[in-house]
């Protein structure tokens, strides 16, 4: 490829059909309030970790639902589980459980257990 001096990029488009949505399904099943998120961003605004980084539970929420799991896997590590997000959520989403379940789901999917 070097001889051209440029490469073909993968593209940013989310390919919903072929993305892996098992992580989302796992969370939907165990924590139905995951569905209730309306992406208001209250959680991300109050987030202790979000103070320091681009960590956003809102974004994680949507990326999991779209099956864009790779970024989520990294982001999740930043959560401190402090629970402020749960308190501010206008829709009663059990946000902390979503983080815990997502981590668990990643573990399970790595073990091909989902």
């Amino acid at each position, binding site marked *: 490829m070097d001889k*051209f001096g*440029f490469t*073909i*990029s993968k*593209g940013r488009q989310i390919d919903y059909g072929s993305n892996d949505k098992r992580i989302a399904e796992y969370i939907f099943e165990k924590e139905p309030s995951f569905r209730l998120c309306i992406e208001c961003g209250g959680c991300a605004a109050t987030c202790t970790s979000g103070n320091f980084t681009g960590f956003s539970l809102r974004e994680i929420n949507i990326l999991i639902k779209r099956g864009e799991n790779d970024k989520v896997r990294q982001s999740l590590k930043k959560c401190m589980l402090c629970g402020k997000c749960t308190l501010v959520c206008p829709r009663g989403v059990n946000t902390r459980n979503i983080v815990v379940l997502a981590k668990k789901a990643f573990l399970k999917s790595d073990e091909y257990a989902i």
Partner: protein
Amino acid sequence: MNIEGKRHIWSDYQKEIADDHFFYVRSCIRQSFFPGSEQFFLNLMRNILGKDVYENPGHTTCTGIGYHSDIVPSATIMTVIARHFALMKESGYKNIAISCVTSFGLYTEILDTWKHFPEQLEKTREYLFKATGREFDIPENVAHSSDIIYKFKDLIAQKAKNLLINKITGEPLKIVEHIGCHYAKMFPKSGVGGAEFPHVLSGMIEAWGGNVVDYPERRHCCGFGFRQYLVQANRGYSVSNTAKKFSSMKPFKPDMVLTNCPGCTMFMDKWQYTIKEMEGTSFGDKGESIPVLTYEELAGLVLGYNPWDLGLQYHMVQSEPLLKKLGIEYDNADKFKTKDGKQMPIPQNLINS
């Protein structure tokens, strides 16, 4: 797919195309890379259809590539185009036939600008007069040369020697049509069939017996994108778009791509080579690449002209698989010979041959 729905849309977007007496303006890319196309257009119009097409030797580039690369300011390009109109006026023509989609887009854009901002028109008249002493009129009819072929597609069909049928299977050929973005996306009313479901090429394919392939990325840009290609650092972006488009059409196994835009023909043709070199991917059936033809070339094949006279050999992706399907006989020995039978150097790395 519901053809009735399409007809409904097409009927909303029928443009008026002049019948005769065209002032022909050439395309920079086409006359350099696919000279056979423009040559055949003139041949077809003058000799087969018996129309009057005039070329003025004083005609220049429209400077569109410079304009879209932020080099040529709009006042300049307006003046350049005004000069073309002046040449047309001087030659006594009122109908302009434009070979290039970039130019066509600019002509329509500028005419529309003048309509909404008459002071710009006045300024342009002034600039042109000051610079060249010429005066111009707004053309009565603006047509892209694909519009004109579209208009005469049924006449061509009547004279057809090769219909777009796969002679091996008896099925109609599966043809992807790709319309240059600047043809109708800016001004849907200026294109035959509008912007979403343009009819200009699909009309030809249907009239000549082929089947149009509608694939998800049909509306996607060919990847040229002017400065995306012209700046080397951006070329990855350009080729990525082409890759995306071809990946999307690949499952449909198209026999060829038909385009009406010089840039599209060039990039859909040459990027296939690049992608194949980079990643080893080809997009046609059985590991072949997909020939990309201009409408003149296709019209020529339909009318039974020698593919080498039409200039098919000057594409990166060679058309032999297509010619076989069409049952067109050709002699490989003649492929790279000059008009007087001298052997030219044979290009390396051609694909599909």
